């Protein structure tokens, strides 16, 4: 596990700890997603966030400025997600499947 370097003290975990609870929400692997910090504008892969927790919840902080970017709480009956600290979440995704061929319109005989 890689602890990201930065100006703040080292967190106990990195963003890979968020893979489990986030996999309950997202179809794609969010640890490779790139979030943009609302505070300092830096981009960071979720896997490189400084993560505190796991209890009472996971808190993912910006490796650049330590602002809270992502919070995840797993209660007995729900997953709570806060992305308020990011301006965007960019998830690598495969190209969409080709659109199905459209049948030519049926032209009634003249």
């Amino acid at each position: 596990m890689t602890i990201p370097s930065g100006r703040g003290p080292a967190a106990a975990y990195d963003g890979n700890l968020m893979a489990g609870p986030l996999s309950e929400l997202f179809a794609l692997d969010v640890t490779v997603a790139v979030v943009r910090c609302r505070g300092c504008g830096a981009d960071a892969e979720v896997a490189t966030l400084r993560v505190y927790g796991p209890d009472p919840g996971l808190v993912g902080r910006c490796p650049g400025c330590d602002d809270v970017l992502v919070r995840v709480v797993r209660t007995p009956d729900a997953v709570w997600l806060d992305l308020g600290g990011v301006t965007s979440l960019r998830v690598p995704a495969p190209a969409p499947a080709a659109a199905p061929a459209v049948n030519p319109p049926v032209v009634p005989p003249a």
Partner: protein
Amino acid sequence: MDFVTRGFQGRPRGRDDRLPPGQYLTGDFPVLSAGPTSNVDHDQWELWVATEDGTRHTWSWVELMALPAETVTVDIHCVTSWSKLDTEWRGVSLDTLLADVETAADFAMVHSYGGYTTNLPLEDLLDGQAWVAYGYEGDDLRPEHGGPARLLVPHLYFWKSAKWVRGIELMLEDSPGFWEQLGYHDYGDPWREQRYQGD
């Protein structure tokens, strides 16, 4: 023949009676943090109380130390299910800090160095129920446990006892804090097992 069992006689109040439902006893003092440990020097430290009309009261570290202090021995209960009995704290009662604060507020938002917040009813900070604690077991409160000073509200789950306390915002309406925004209970009574919203 003895028809009276221990159960009918009742038992002296023991450790089990002091454990809220769903809790286990620990002799350790686990450290749970939502962020890096704050290190605030005494000469930079300040505590503020802000009322609903914007009036602000502040205390420097020296001023806090000059206030009457109390030593209290209390049980503490973390929402992650550990409880610790007979912990000894030293600090200033919120009754003392709020004695000259005029407010019509019913709620408080506690703010910490580092940005953490937690909300609770103002009445739960009064009447000998809450302290700004700076001593633990005869020593200065260590930074990882919230030093130089943390809130101590032992009758609620311990996430309400904000580490690195820096201010108390008095509010007319309730508003959720850091964990309360994300599924945790607004009040957090361990004896009613109010861990999550809806409990």
